[in-house]
């Protein structure tokens, strides 16, 4: 739980772009390879397979079914998204760890990916007529001057709110943990255990929040995709 940018970093840059390999980057690589190995092992071990089936059923029930058409294509994307966000959220609770999703750059990249995928698949399904989803139906033609910019703003606000929601949740949880730890350091020896209990409780709550936020992120991603593919208007 270090401030981002501080601590371990391998400086690396391409054409003036700062691509240093910092702790969150390493954690993301670790999480990705962990998920890959987990799903690979699950194909060969019966006990792990049970966990895998549980996760698969959960994802397909909760998210993939809300996109009614071509469920199987979206299923793998949503599964990857959920597992990646969930394990990245959890990494912030390890001592010395830092959750990459507590960094606005990571969540913004994820949100932009979701936005691009939903819009591109919308164009893929509807063709150029996908643009007409910006025009609300049943409204006098004069009002369209106001409504089309509004629809555009609401379209662009979706990935923004998606990114900031996850980032703020992760960051706020870690700040609260840090504040409780600071209280533990500062308080006299007799009552040092009280803030420690607070740290334990907040950590448990953070595990719950990690799951809920990963769930919400994937739920909203599936909602936006189904919005673009099925056409809400």
């Amino acid at each position: 739980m270090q401030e981002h940018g501080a601590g371990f970093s391998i400086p690396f840059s391409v054409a003036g772009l700062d691509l240093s390999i910092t702790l969150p980057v390493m954690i993301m690589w670790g999480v990705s390879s962990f998920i890959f190995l987990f799903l690979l092992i699950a194909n060969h071990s019966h006990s792990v397979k049970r966990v895998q089936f549980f996760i698969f059923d959960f994802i397909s029930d909760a998210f993939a079914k809300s996109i009614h058409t071509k469920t199987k294509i979206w299923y793998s994307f949503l599964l990857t998204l959920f597992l990646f966000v969930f394990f990245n959220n959890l990494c912030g609770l390890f001592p010395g760890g830092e959750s990459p999703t507590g960094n606005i750059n990571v969540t913004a990249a994820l949100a932009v990916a979701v936005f691009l995928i939903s819009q591109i698949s919308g164009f893929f399904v509807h063709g150029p007529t996908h643009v007409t989803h910006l025009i609300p139906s049943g409204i006098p033609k004069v009002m369209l001057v106001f409504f089309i910019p509004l629809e555009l703003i609401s379209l662009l606000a979706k990935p923004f709110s998606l990114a900031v929601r996850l980032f703020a949740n992760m960051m706020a949880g870690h700040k609260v943990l840090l504040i409780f730890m600071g209280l533990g350091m500062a308080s006299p020896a007799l009552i040092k255990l009280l803030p420690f209990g607070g740290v334990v409780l907040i950590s448990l709550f953070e595990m719950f929040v990690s799951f809920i936020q990963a769930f919400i992120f994937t739920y909203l991603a599936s909602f936006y995709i189904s919005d673009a593919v099925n056409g809400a208007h």
Partner: protein
Amino acid sequence: MNSLAAGLAIGLAALGVSFSLAIVYFKTLDSISRQPDLLGSLRVLMFIGFAFIEAIALYALVISFMLIQSAPK
């Protein structure tokens, strides 16, 4: 001045969010007591609503952190 603004930002957001969380919880308990069969699906919906509402307070928290960091030293 910035500390005051930061405190007001998170405080007012917490005020509104606590009311809305209370409404969500109240209504969910109400519906569960009317139809106990729906407990499972209502619980999921309640937590989704919680996360959405909580996010508003967290936006305010981000704003207040920004205000504190931009305070003149």
